[in-house]
């Protein structure tokens, strides 16, 4: 059953409304700007598609157009954060943190200033633009960085809350957002806290727990629901913060279920699955199956067709759950 404490959307399994997580960023940063005059937004020639334009319209004096220069954007933001501003800098994730990774490492993470890296169009679901624009390595490169928090929101509402929380954190943060409309699972009343994983779906007698991050969480929920109807108990946990990982929740749920599936729109290498495997290998080893992109680049196509082709659809998650269940030690 759905976790009642989280006050999730009632129609979560039945054609829920959809909106892009980048919209949640746009709304969140606008609200953050209203709450705190230190908030500034920078963009690298992508004011509309990063949804920075809503902030830019209301606070033109706090919006900075950087032109197509992501390395400069990161370091200018570092300087502004060092001064005392709270800069959110926006581009596509392939360019930021893709192109400007070292600038972020030295001038934001090591420098430990509270600039917020906002990577849009993350994942394969950016679709027709093709492999160059489908960022599938950002979680890996950002979670390896000391001082950096990594957040991947499951829907537009969680993205809004994550953005607001980021404005208040006083720390460097990376947030990834998607381009496409994806199902809205949470409500304004759903709690959000950086560093907390949330159990969205409970089974009475779970045989497998799915840890999912980002909009693919919805596919994970659908898979668990269908498997539940088929008689297999599956829990689903939303891991919005990939770093720092909510180790307590993850170990407890893995212990309870005895087998794990991870789901992410990202390379298997270095992403959520790797992060969870690192913890469980040490704390409570159980069989793990990984759903994500297996060491390949994407290609042009319709987002849904790409999710299916790269084996991140509902049927693939169900297969992974069955494989994990069959490998259980008990």
């Amino acid at each position, binding site marked *: 059953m759905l976790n009642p404490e989280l006050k999730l959307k009632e129609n979560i399994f039945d054609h829920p409304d959809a909106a892009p997580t980048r919209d949640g960023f746009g709304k969140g940063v606008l609200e953050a700007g209203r709450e705190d005059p230190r908030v*500034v937004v920078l963009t690298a020639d992508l004011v509309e598609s990063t949804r920075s334009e809503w902030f830019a319209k209301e606070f033109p*004096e*706090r919006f*900075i157009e*950087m*032109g197509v*220069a992501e*390395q*400069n954007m990161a*370091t*200018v*933001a*570092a*300087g*502004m*954060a*060092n*001064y*005392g*501003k709270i*800069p959110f800098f926006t581009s596509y994730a392939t360019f930021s943190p893709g192109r400007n990774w*070292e*600038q972020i490492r*030295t*001038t934001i993470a*090591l*420098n*430990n*200033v509270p600039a917020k890296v906002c990577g849009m169009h993350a994942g394969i679901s950016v679709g027709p633009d093709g492999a160059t624009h489908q960022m599938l390595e950002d979680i890996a490169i950002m979670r390896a960085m000391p001082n950096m928090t990594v957040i991947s929101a499951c829907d537009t509402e969680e993205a809004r809350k994550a953005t607001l929380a980021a404005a208040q954190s006083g720390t460097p943060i990376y947030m990834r957002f998607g381009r496409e409309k994806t199902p809205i699972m949470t409500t304004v009343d759903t709690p959000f806290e950086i560093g907390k994983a949330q159990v969205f779906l409970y089974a009475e007698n779970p045989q497998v727990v799915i840890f999912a991050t980002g909009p693919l969480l919805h596919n994970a929920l659908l898979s668990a629901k269908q498997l539940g109807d088929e008689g297999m108990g599956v829990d689903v946990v939303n891991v919005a913060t990939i770093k720092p990982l909510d180790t307590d929740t993850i170990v407890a749920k893995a212990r309870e279920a005895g087998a794990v599936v991870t789901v992410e729109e990202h390379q298997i290498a270095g992403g959520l699955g790797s992060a969870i495997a690192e913890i469980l290998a040490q704390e409570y080893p159980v069989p793990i199956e990984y759903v994500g992109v297996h060491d390949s680049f994407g290609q042009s196509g319709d987002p849904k067709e790409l999710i299916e082709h790269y084996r991140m659809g509902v049927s693939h998650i169900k297969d992974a759950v069955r494989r994990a269940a069959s490998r259980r030690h008990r």
Partner: protein
Amino acid sequence: MQPLTDTEVYELTARANAIRATIIEMLVAAGSGHTAGPLGMADIFTALYFKVLNHDPQNPEWEERDRLMLSNGHITPVRYAAMAHAGYFPIEECLTLRKFGSRLQGHPEREKLPGVETTSGPLGSGLSQASGYAYAARMDGKKFRIYCAMSDGEHQEGNLWEAMMFAGKNRLSNLTGIIDRNNIQIDGYTEQIMPLEPFREKYESFGWHVLEVDGHNIPQFIAACEEAKAIYEKPTVIIAHTIPGKGIREIERDYRWHGKPPSKEEAQAFLAELRTMQGKIASEHQ
């Protein structure tokens, strides 16, 4: 500002010489690090810390202080030495440079040592940080100035040209760039590795006010910093022509001294040379 008196010039010159000696001592103690760049910038860092900057060594976090960002973090020994001489910390602490547990990291870190303003080392990212800082400070109507010391070689980094565009576009007149134009980099002479000239025209075409000075003429450099304060519509860059390794003949102009420290034996001779100011002072007691 009043022109410097002869006594002031003498005192600053002597201070620069003492800072050079500290640089040699700290590099020998460290056993690694860069020699030519720090020596070459000793006069400018002396001028900055003893005349130009509005700062308080006892209160490095003073909000209204001028900010000095060092982009080419590898010449940080000159900054550490100048800071120590200015009273930020005891001069003896300079001997901990590059040692385990030291606040004086091989490349400067903001969180380790109050007063270094930012973390740097990877080249080409200082001017953009200084520009962001200057932009933010101007939003709040702050009166302090932001200085950014850079090397010439790091202008081969693309990030730096992006920063030049940004500062020029936004007319960041509270920003003064200082380029150590010493013509050397690790692999050789800049104009052979990847030419940077015409430096002045490049900056001018990006919307900057450009001044050129002899980087070892302290009054000239201070006058340029003063002129920059009077330029209201543009950022200013001071191209300081320097001699790498200045003050020690064996090191001067030799790019092979970019990234190595002197040995103990070499250091003895170099310190003697500094004490006699390259032979200008006749009597030298060992």
